[in-house]
């Protein structure tokens, strides 16, 4: 879950906003470039963005006796990179802070950094590391999605820990405390999210392999092979 409105001191709220804005700016620039080069990328953007909308509205119970929701950012990150994902996340987060009192305008910057920047960036890094290896394509997507989800909540914990260091042990000990609340709850959700998005990726490969080839998501031969035997 995101940081709630009013729960970050003003200086930290501003700090995360200042970090988030250039990421969004770069994301919008990249988005325009991708769409100008290939209008057929728009439906793919719709699918990956649509899943962020769906998954981030599902609050699921977890083993810790509390609830959280998946982020759905991994798939978009694999297809378009982390910065475009930031833009979609910002839209979702804005909707949630305006209409659902879920997150808020002052903490939006911090929430964009965790869900829209660092999470996707972590997933994308895994994906780039595995893209040209022999590791199964769908397994790569699974890992990227699960890591993107989990890292989002590690960063949320870090953002809260930096703003509220514990009296004993400082930032490190409150980081561990918040990890216990956010990250552990998230582990089962991250795994399920990864599996579901890997399945969605399979359907994209079957229906529209051309767009994945054009965006160079995976080497062409592997996409064709996967589309062929499905």
């Amino acid at each position, binding site marked *: 879950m995101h940081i*709630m409105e009013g729960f970050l001191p003003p200086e930290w709220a501003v700090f995360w906003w200042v970090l988030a804005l250039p990421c969004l700016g770069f994301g919008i620039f990249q988005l325009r470039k991708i769409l100008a080069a290939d209008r057929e990328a728009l*439906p793919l953007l719709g699918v990956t963005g649509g899943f962020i909308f769906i998954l981030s509205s*599902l609050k699921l119970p977890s083993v810790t006796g509390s609830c959280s929701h998946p982020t759905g950012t991994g798939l978009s990150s694999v297809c378009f990179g982390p910065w475009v994902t930031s833009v979609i996340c910002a839209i979702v987060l804005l909707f949630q802070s305006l209409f659902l009192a879920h997150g*808020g305008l002052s903490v939006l910057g911090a929430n964009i950094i965790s869900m829209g920047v660092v999470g996707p960036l972590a997933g994308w890094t895994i994906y780039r590391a595995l893209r040209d290896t022999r590791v199964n394509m769908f397994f790569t997507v699974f890992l990227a999605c699960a890591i993107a989800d989990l890292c989002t909540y590690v960063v949320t914990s870090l953002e809260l820990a930096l703003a*509220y260091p514990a009296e004993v042990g400082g930032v490190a000990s409150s980081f561990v405390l918040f990890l216990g*609340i956010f990250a552990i709850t998230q582990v089962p959700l991250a795994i*399920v999210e990864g599996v579901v998005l890997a399945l969605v990726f399979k359907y994209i490969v079957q229906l529209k392999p051309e767009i994945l080839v054009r965006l160079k998501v995976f080497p062409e031969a592997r996409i064709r092979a996967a589309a062929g035997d499905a």
Partner: protein
Amino acid sequence: MWKKYRLEVIAVVAILCFCGIFLYTSSLMGDAEYAGSDTLGASRVAELAGVSEEDFQPLVPQWEPPSAEIESGLFALQAAVGGIIVGWVFGYWRGQKNRST
């Protein structure tokens, strides 16, 4: 057959496991409230800051859904918007594919 539907099988098994684990842990933890992790995080923040949770006022005025019913409706709306887009695009791609073959 197995090769063709391998991912589907794994996904269904993962979801069933998730539900099973939920049923099992919720039967063990009778007092679990299943509150949002943000709510738990907020009370921990209040503890660390040494003030009560009510002292955290929104920095920017915020509209809150008047009830949980309205909130769940708006969440459903968000999911529906995503679902419509996803369904529309998959249909569009399927149509394109059928036409070209």
